[in-house]
């Protein structure tokens, strides 16, 4: 697999080069950073640790048309097929998250919308040199330089980036846009590895997740769920910003004689998430919903797909307005076990 160097002053040209044949997504924004499609990029990435909203938008848009229809007709008009896309500069945790969610979207029935986009998306990750205070990817089989789920990994070596292809798709990308790239030397590779090791050492928070998936069912009626959920506002910010959260709602919309059926992100922390038409709600309070969320990520997903549905990106901890901290919850779980 090829290893290349890209000088930072050639970044803008590099992006334009990639954008000439594919849709490029990078982190944009001053106050709030998100991944958006952009045809050109002035600044090289790496200034911001991570986007507030993860790049799951690329393969699983917040609102997505499933099909359109005309009033009185029974024909479904499918939306256009996805374009080829490249996500430049996502962090390894977000790529691992996509890998984790892939399993669900191809469980028995293929979710054709997701698969179409996923197969046409190339992920170029940027290893983290300075993890954030709430990052704990290393507790969940990740790392600041993990290559899992990535097609190419980039590392910021100061004046230049080191790029390494991980998959054939990544190799092809580097070959196609070779205009700005030079070959990497052994020193560059060494520098990358040293940075990766150093970054791992900078991660301060974590949890020993062993025993949690197996032990959670025993804590179903434990009082800890009431304690950790008492401040929860049910605002849903944690679920929208979580790279592994994938729940969605399906709604029909009409505009005059035209209509569409679309799906949009939903949150299991909302009260109406499991509300039956009869008025019965199996998860009536925030305690049950918080318990369900943690169990879903750390137990149910493990039982079905053998992976913990959490990558330790820390967004939920950073954003929760009332400081509900998943590491705090998990340490209470470990205590109770």
């Amino acid at each position, binding site marked *: 697999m090829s290893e290349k160097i890209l000088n930072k002053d050639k970044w803008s040209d590099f992006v334009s080069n990639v954008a000439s044949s594919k849709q490029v997504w990078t982190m944009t924004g001053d106050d709030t950073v998100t991944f958006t499609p952009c045809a050109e990029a002035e600044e090289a990435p790496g200034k911001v640790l991570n986007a507030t909203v993860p790049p799951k938008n690329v393969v699983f848009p917040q609102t997505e048309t499933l099909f359109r229809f005309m*009033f009185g007709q*029974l024909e479904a008009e*499918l939306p256009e097929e996805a374009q080829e896309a490249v996500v430049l500069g996502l962090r390894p945790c977000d790529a691992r998250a996509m890998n984790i969610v892939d399993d669900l979207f191809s*469980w028995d*029935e*293929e979710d054709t919308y997701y698969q179409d986009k996923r197969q046409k998306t190339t992920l170029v990750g940027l290893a983290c040199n300075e993890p954030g205070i709430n990052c704990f990817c290393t507790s969940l089989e990740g790392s600041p330089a993990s290559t899992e789920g990535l097609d190419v990994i980039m590392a910021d070596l100061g004046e230049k980036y080191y790029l390494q292809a991980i998959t054939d798709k990544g190799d092809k990308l580097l070959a196609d846009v070779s205009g700005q790239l030079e070959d990497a030397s052994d020193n560059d590779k060494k520098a990358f590895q040293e940075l990766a090791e150093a970054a791992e050492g900078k991660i301060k928070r974590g949890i020993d997740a062993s025993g949690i998936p197996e032990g959670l*069912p025993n804590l179903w009626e434990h009082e800890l769920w009431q304690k950790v959920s008492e401040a929860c506002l049910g605002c849903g910010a944690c679920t929208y910003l979580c790279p592994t959260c994938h729940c969605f709602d399906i709604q029909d919309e009409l505009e005059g004689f035209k209509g569409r059926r679309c799906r949009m992100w939903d949150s299991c922390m909302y009260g109406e998430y499991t509300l039956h038409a009869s008025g019965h709600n199996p998860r009536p309070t925030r305690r049950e919903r918080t318990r*369900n969320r943690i169990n879903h990520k750390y137990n149910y997903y493990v039982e079905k797909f053998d992976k913990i549905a959490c990558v330790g990106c820390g967004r939920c901890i950073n954003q929760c307005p009332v400081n509900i901290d998943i590491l705090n919850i998990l340490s209470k779980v470990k205590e109770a076990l």
Partner: protein
Amino acid sequence: MKNNGNPYIPHAATVEEAWNETYGDRCIRTFKVVFDDEEIRESWEHRPGQCAIIGILGVGESMISISSSPTEGKFLRFSVMRMGKVTKALHQLEPGDKMMVRGPYGNSFPVEEWKGKNILTIGGGIGQAPLRPIVEYVKANKDDYGDLTTIYGSRTSDDLCFRNEFENMMEDDSVSCHLSVDVEEQDWPHFVGFVPTLLMEVNPSPENRIAITCGPPIMIKFVLENLKKLGFEDEQIYTTLENRMKCGIGKCGRCNAGNLYVCKDGPVFNYATLKQVPEAFA
């Protein structure tokens, strides 16, 4: 509409017959539908216990159990209770109207495993709708199974579903059929009392018997207690769960009761499995 492997695209079906089983606010209406597209009509296969998502474009969709057995013919029957936005719209359909159907979803009653066993169904109110396909299936495959007993009750005789089918079954010697209403009623010749009480009256032996129950949660609770009193083991008891559903294919994440996705691991569940999952009884 061909779906080309896209699981979210529904197919058009015409309502051949539609009639109300019950009346009033939360009335139940049964639809007999046939797919418009011949290829889909011929290639459609479902097993007793499975569900389908039916709906109307522009209004929405709802997961409803298929209450017809595949042995009955190339049509589908749905019995829908009028509750919310989608079911209200469905209730307005008359013969000749169209509805959109996609499926079949979920697991089914393990009819292969049950060969040679006696089958007992205990239903209450609308809960008979998911039980009807197994009753019809066993009747159609009499030789593969032991005896068939059905116990069915509702609050009043006006709330009984499939009334005429049950009257026929009472005349049929090959089926042991028992009906009940909760309170005394003029001209009601059968049992008066709650379904769990009728179950004790019928006193079925647990010997080589499978019990399947579906109905309001309070009924299920007492039926389960009584089945245990009669000596049924957990593995002999089956029930169906329901939950709010959207995608029907295990992607949207909302129908799970504990680690069980009702749309994929269910809706048919063995009681022994459910006992491990506290949320199943929420």
